[in-house]
């Protein structure tokens, strides 16, 4: 087997290195991009579009609630069955595919890294067990650290150093990547059947969600963390919530990032850009959110764009899922997790005949089109919440074609013309901008560009997507088709997809971060933590941390203490 590979004559889009559609060869040796090769296997890309492997900043692909979604929905599993092949395991599932299908389908779209967006610390082993079973993709997971009693108690006492020590411990114990925040305070309140707005007091804990977010942002920046806090803001899905979203950005405006990146990333921002006061006058406020992002440099977003059709919603935002289930009356699973977090799951159908869904559909795209600098925006569907990840090519084709958007809007509820801005936006993305929102920006926002992801510079991971299209292609249907199944996907120098078929399934690596905290601080924090385990947890402290056996292919990023 050749260890060298040469991708010849491709038109390369490598935005991190400023390469915007240049005819260029890519040399690969031992899984890395190199300057030159001597005796390579040659792939003739023949003027096709070449990009670094895609980097997904936010998707729910592994763990307790994903699997609870599968268990609850055999009808979804049956939708996506594909028989095993010589190299592939059997596949199931559409909105919640089985682990094997997850790896294959992402790889076929040219993706090579996916961030699992919400890992309940107590169930972290489950997330890792599933990630072991996701072939091809490198991965990482964000532990939930915001509704944790330890977090809220330190936020209340104002001891940011001890909060940082706890944050470091929980990221290490879960082999996690960074700080995930989901409806801070609201999920703890949900354990009593309640919810919290940004400045409400969390029942029994006497802190506000605003204080939790600010505290965790400060704690995060005490280390050289590759990623900022990753926030699902309060009041998801509520009409008029765009004010909460803007207020959340303002909370951390004064916090200084420890690295050259944002201080806050808000996720699936589509769900948080709503105007109006009820479902009757519900409207898009994507313009207000985009204005804020355009005027400020400390915040980035991913869009969480809607894919029309049936899907399975799932989030640690327990009260939100309950509200959704009350609207639809469909099945509903809830799973509150002691001292830490919760989750809810319910199926949902996004219909272009319904005014609210149509406006939601418009908002995700408006965010991408109204934020001027693509380095502040990532393409997501909050898989599977706004739609399954295999819908990404649909969104790409819409962002690249005003004509496509107009055609889609014609078939949808007329509310799109008076309560959304999409039909009036002329901007069309070019391929360089698509490359930014699907790999360049996401790798940078996660700090993974320093670890070989999201670009094709010398030393980068040899993760490459070759799309079967010319850079001149303007037909939206052809663009969509090309982005769904690559001509080639190369992962760490190995061809894993050829002509849209998976041809090899090497295991992915799990990237985890080790925040390095002072021993004295850790010892002080441990006194409180040990008490929590002795009195309130249902497992022992010694059985809690994720053992090394759960990361057969680990990649560690150290995050030294800064201040």
């Amino acid at each position: 087997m050749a260890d060298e590979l040469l991708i010849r004559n491709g038109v390369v889009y490598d935005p991190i290195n400023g390469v915007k559609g240049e005819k260029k060869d890519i040399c690969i040796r031992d899984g890395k991009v190199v300057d030159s090769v001597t005796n390579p296997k040659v792939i003739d890309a023949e003027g096709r579009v070449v990009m670094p492997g895609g980097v997904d900043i936010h998707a729910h692909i592994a763990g307790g609630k994903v699997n609870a979604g599968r268990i609850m929905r055999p009808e979804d599993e049956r939708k996506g069955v594909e028989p095993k092949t010589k190299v592939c395991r059997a596949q199931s599932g559409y909105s919640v595919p089985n682990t094997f299908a997850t790896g294959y389908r992402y790889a076929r779209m040219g993706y090579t890294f996916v961030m699992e967006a919400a890992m309940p610390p107590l169930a972290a082993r489950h997330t890792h067990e599933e990630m072991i079973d996701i072939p091809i993709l490198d991965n990482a997971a964000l532990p939930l650290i915001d509704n944790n009693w330890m977090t809220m108690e330190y936020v209340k006492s104002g001891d940011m150093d001890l909060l940082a020590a706890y944050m470091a411990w929980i990221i290490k114990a879960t082999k996690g990547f960074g700080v995930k925040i989901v409806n801070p305070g609201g999920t703890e309140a949900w354990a009593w059947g309640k919810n919290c707005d940004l400045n409400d007091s969390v029942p029994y804990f006497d802190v506000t969600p605003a204080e939790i977010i600010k505290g965790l942002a400060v704690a995060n920046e005490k280390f050289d963390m590759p990623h900022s806090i990753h926030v699902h803001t309060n009041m998801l899905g509520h009409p008029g919530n765009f004010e909460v979203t803007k207020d959340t950005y303002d909370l951390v405006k004064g916090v200084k990032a420890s690295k050259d990146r944002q201080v806050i990333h808000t996720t699936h921002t589509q769900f948080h850009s709503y105007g109006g006061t009820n479902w009757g006058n519900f409207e898009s406020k994507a313009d207000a959110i985009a204005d804020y992002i355009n005027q400020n440099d400390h915040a980035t977003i991913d869009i969480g764009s809607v894919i029309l059709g049936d899907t399975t919603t799932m989030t640690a935002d327990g009260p939100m899922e309950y509200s959704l289930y009350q609207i639809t009356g469909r099945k509903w699973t809830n799973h509150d997790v002691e001292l830490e977090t919760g989750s809810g799951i319910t199926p949902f159908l996004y219909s272009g005949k319904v005014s609210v869904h149509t406006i939601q559909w418009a908002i995700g795209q408006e965010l991408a089109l109204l934020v001027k600098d693509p380095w502040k925006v990532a393409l997501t569907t909050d898989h599977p919440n706004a739609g399954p990840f295999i819908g990404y090519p649909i969104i790409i084709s819409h962002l690249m074609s005003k004509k496509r958007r107009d055609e889609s809007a014609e078939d949808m509820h007329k509310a799109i013309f008076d309560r959304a801005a999409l039909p009036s936006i002329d901007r069309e993305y070019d391929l360089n901008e698509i490359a930014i929102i699907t790999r360049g920006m996401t790798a940078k926002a996660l700090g993974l560009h320093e670890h070989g992801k999201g670009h094709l510079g010398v030393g980068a991971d040899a993760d490459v997507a070759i799309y079967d299209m010319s850079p001149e292609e303007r037909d939206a249907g052809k663009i969509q088709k090309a982005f769904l199944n690559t001509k080639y996907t190369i992962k760490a120098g190995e061809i894993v997809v050829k002509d849209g078929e998976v041809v090899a399934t090497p295991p992915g690596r799990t990237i985890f971060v080790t925040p390095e905290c002072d021993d004295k601080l850790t010892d002080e924090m441990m006194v409180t933590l040990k008490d929590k385990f002795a009195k309130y947890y249902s497992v022992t402290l010694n059985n809690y941390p994720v053992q090394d056996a759960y990361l057969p292919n680990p990649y560690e990023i150290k995050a030294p203490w800064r201040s």
Partner: protein
Amino acid sequence: MVEITDVVCSLCGCVCDDIVLEVENNKVVKVKRGACSVGKSKLLGHERIKSPMIRENGELKECSYDEAIKKSAEILYKSRRPLLYGWSSTVCEADKVGVELTEDLGAVMDNTASVCHGPSVLAIQDVGLPSCTLGEVKNRADLVIYWGANPAQAHANHMKRYSYVSKGYWTAEGKKGKKLVVVDVRKTMTAKMADVFVQVEQGQDYPVFSALRAILQGHEDVVPDKVGGVPKEQLLELANMVKEAKFVMTFFGMGVTHTGARHNNIVNAIQFTRAAHLHTKASIMPLRGHYNVAGINQVCTWETGFPFAIEMARGYAWYNPGELSATDLLYRGDCDAAMIIASDPGAHFPGESLKHLAKIPVIQIDPYANPTTEFADVVIPVAVSGIEAEGNVYRMDNIPIRLRKILDTDYLPDEEILERILTEVRALREKEGE
């Protein structure tokens, strides 16, 4: 002598993980703390299958691991429709190899949930499951309901560690600050501890749930004077307790999954929880039996999309409980070989199903002899997970915990046996040039 702490029990779905043992000369000599009497007995160890065996002329004859593994592979490879059943008393790592073997053989795979909380799974597929972790119950629940379950005898540490008797953040007084309701057809040991014992007529759980739902949704006028043997006053009292509680927790067992309306009972139990949620916080959880029955459901689902009763003959997973559940398959005589791992259908399956199982070639993989051994054709003893082998398991609330290896052994772990069988099956196929 060495003291070992944080030992994880591999007996029931409670998966107690704070056990303290004393080990001397590679033997557990004392269980100092943490285990219930049944768990203690398992940890102290009892008689094992000594050697791999193959049945010849009606007698099990000792053989080597190699011979038993080879024979097993031959049986499975020759079979047109093998059934691979059990999987609940072993670790997820072994279960994963089981799914791969199923896929390779195009076999039927089913697990013990099929004859246990399978109806609960069907109910979850109908309406979902509002639930929580056991620590949530411990810290918050002020009303605990056990319905068709007798944890005092079946899950002996459950009340002490997680529910009625335990002390937590908002429940610092333990059972003094809580109410216990037991619903059952007879006054069990658990019922004797209850503040309220509701005696329901055999098979009448469904209408009792319906009556409670009606009351909680403001329709008490439609409830007759007596429902399923329960007086209306008691139902009103129970509904009132639900409304006044801050956190209501319902645990249910085989007493509801396998009587009367079966899975519809559980649908109604979950609907009762949803109705309670209109007034307060309410959760519900099946009391899972084997220590990793939740785990095989998890593994089977993330790898195939479905939790039990699947067939891989089509190349992808086909799910159809009732057709592919082990008892039904055997009852119809629709499989021609079986591998039984980490379970004992010999003791638990209906007679008509067992008749067929006794006729076909059976491979048994288990540390201990049991009624299934009596008709098994190949018997492969293994290391005891949680004592001699490590691995991941899921507690009844789906919390993953890693079993520890405490003692050394010459017995091979389940995972390795299965991997070797899979390798042999593939070798056979290659040999025949398929």
